[in-house]
């Protein structure tokens, strides 16, 4: 069995068989249903009536919230995803050094990701960022006047993004795992060549880590486009719809207003948007991702 270019290795089918079955048995039917629903007036209960492209027409021509939510979500993705990944990478590199009690730090930094959606935490955010909250008190020490971090339509989305970035633990962990896989000999060779720390980072660490960077980028993007938890628990989409993330909007349409057909149409629009961005990312990755198997 040759892993050569032209010859196929059919054993691969055996390995991915669980997923093929899972997709066909568990995932395909709900996907098709929701696609069908997007052309109906399905209202959760009762039967769904075919309405053609009506939902899509309404979304593009009449729904004010659609563009607003899309805009908010774009900003959210553009702020939260790069910040989270850059932060996670920086911390992972620092934590990869030989520092005492590094285990403790690693655990402490992962805690926010465990606390994530905890009911207890949603309360805390309000008290940290409200007008007389902790953040304003701290800023007052350095002479910065108080802001309504969650109540000001200009600031709220940034504050919400901060909560997302705060949970950088999972990305950090993957970077750490990736860093551990970089063979020490590469570093040694570079050091012998007289490369400095910065040069080693850009010439060895980043290329070797690029598959993980790609993974984090794609996954965080896919998640961020659909994310609604922080907006749902902290701001409920307000103030003035400034945190009305797309995922929250379609949740409201589906489960608050019972317009599941409409929500399905919204979902499929989002699906294609995410697909577009993911494809572009993969396309660009050909020039910057370095795999061990493509020598």
């Amino acid at each position, binding site marked *: 069995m040759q892993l050569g270019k032209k010859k196929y290795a059919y054993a691969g089918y055996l390995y991915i*068989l669980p997923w093929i079955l899972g997709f066909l048995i568990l995932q395909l039917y709900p996907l098709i249903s929701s696609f069908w629903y997007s052309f109906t007036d399905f209202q959760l*209960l009762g039967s769904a009536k075919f309405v053609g492209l009506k939902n899509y027409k309404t979304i593009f021509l009449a729904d004010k919230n659609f563009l607003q939510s899309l805009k908010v979500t774009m900003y959210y993705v553009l702020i939260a995803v790069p910040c989270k990944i850059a932060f996670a990478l920086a911390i992972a590199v620092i934590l990869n050094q030989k520092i005492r009690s590094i285990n403790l730090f690693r655990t402490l930094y992962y805690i926010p990701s465990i606390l994530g959606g905890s009911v207890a935490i949603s309360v805390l955010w*309000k008290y940290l960022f409200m007008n007389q909250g902790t953040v304003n008190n701290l800023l007052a020490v350095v002479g910065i006047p108080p802001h309504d971090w969650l109540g000001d339509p200009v600031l709220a989305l940034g504050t919400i993004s901060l909560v997302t970035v705060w949970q950088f633990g999972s990305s950090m962990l993957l970077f750490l795992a990736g860093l551990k896989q970089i063979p020490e000999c590469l570093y040694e060779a570079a050091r012998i060549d007289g490369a400095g720390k910065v040069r080693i980072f850009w010439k060895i660490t980043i290329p070797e880590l690029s598959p993980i960077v790609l993974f984090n980028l794609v996954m965080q993007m896919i998640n961020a486009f659909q994310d609604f938890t922080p907006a749902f628990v902290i701001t409920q989409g307000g103030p003035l719809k400034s945190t009305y993330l797309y995922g929250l909007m379609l949740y409201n349409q589906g489960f608050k207003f019972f317009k599941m057909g409409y929500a399905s149409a919204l979902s499929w629009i989002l699906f294609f948007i995410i697909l577009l961005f993911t494809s572009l990312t993969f396309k660009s990755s050909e020039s910057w991702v370095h795999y061990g198997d493509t020598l």
Partner: protein
Amino acid sequence: MKKSVVALLVVLLAMSSVFASGAKESSKEADNVTLRVSWWGGDSRHTPTLQAMDAYSKKNPNVKLEGEYGGWDGYYQKLVTQVAGGTAADIIQIDQPWLNELCSKGDVFAEISATDFDLTQFDADFLKNYCTYNGKLMGLPSGTNVNTFIVDTKLLSDSGIDPNTVWTWENIISEGKKIHQKDPSKYFSSATPDILRFWFEVYIAQLAGEVVGNNKRVAFTEEQGTMAFTYFKRWFDEGIVAPFSQTSLFYQKFQENPDWIKGNTASAWDWVSSMGKDIGTKQNIETRQFPVMAGAKNSGVLMRPSQILVVNNNSKNKKEAIKFLNYMFYDNEGIITLGTSRGIPSTVIGRKSLAEKGLISKMEEKATNEGTLQAGNPQSVWQMNSEVIQTMQDVIDEFGFGKLTPQQASAKMIQSLNATLASL
């Protein structure tokens, strides 16, 4: 290669065994009946309800009662999912506005009026106004809930305001503004954006009767809307209420705002059912009558069931379900065990039994009586529609954040409501 095939076969076998085990059916015995009862609540509702269920099962050994209870979060979503899947419990606790939403989608609940359930102990209008769909009685009000206006008498007198003031729309401003004048961190009203929407609905109800009528039309004129918004603009301008930028993060949770808990705000619009929770450990809280303008068409004060208990139309044991409801509403043991865990009972016998045992708190009783006296007409089903509410809220938000003048807000409110109503 062979080993990999073997490994995959093992995985496949494991999978098929899982599939097979999932297919087994639960066995049913002929005479014994299992009733599933679902509700949301806190400790103070879970414990008495489970006790009542236990006591009932002891008396009726053939009936097994299973409680499916939890917190408020997600309850409605789960219920809707279950109804869609045909798996909802036999007896279900719902919130009043859901009755119309769910019934309009199909024959979800059993018609109570078609059974022999005794309705004489209920107020007929109350049943008709809040528990019917298309003229059919679909559920039973577990308790009575009314709006109440609560004030912090200490903050009022500290600010030089007579704590016994009878509130009018005008003196809320002329007297209330003294609080913010004296201490800029304090305000007369604790209203968050959602509560301001309630106040707006009260004001419009008094001016025009209602916001949206049962005929699916906006019931107020642009002038009336402008009047209302002009009035509430003064709330912001004269420091009656804190700016939305400070209160919007406590949307639907004004009682979690430290300003309210610490006593920096002097009054709240509330429901009697949640009053206890909202007051918490605060002292010097008293209930007051709502302001009513001269010639008001409707007080705008709401009265509705605290929850509604319905029987699933899919239930195989509707008769037994009705019997258990009968126990909850009419059996002395049931009444006493359940107490006020679902609000002050909506039956005469329920109120009487609890009052005799001293199980109704004085303040709740007073607030309920006052509210009942002042209560206006029920809101139309369209005004309670969640999309209509959201539409109102969106305009109120824009207005409160200063993006719209009173005239603009009124025009936009009418225009947006018309658009939403047309789409429903």
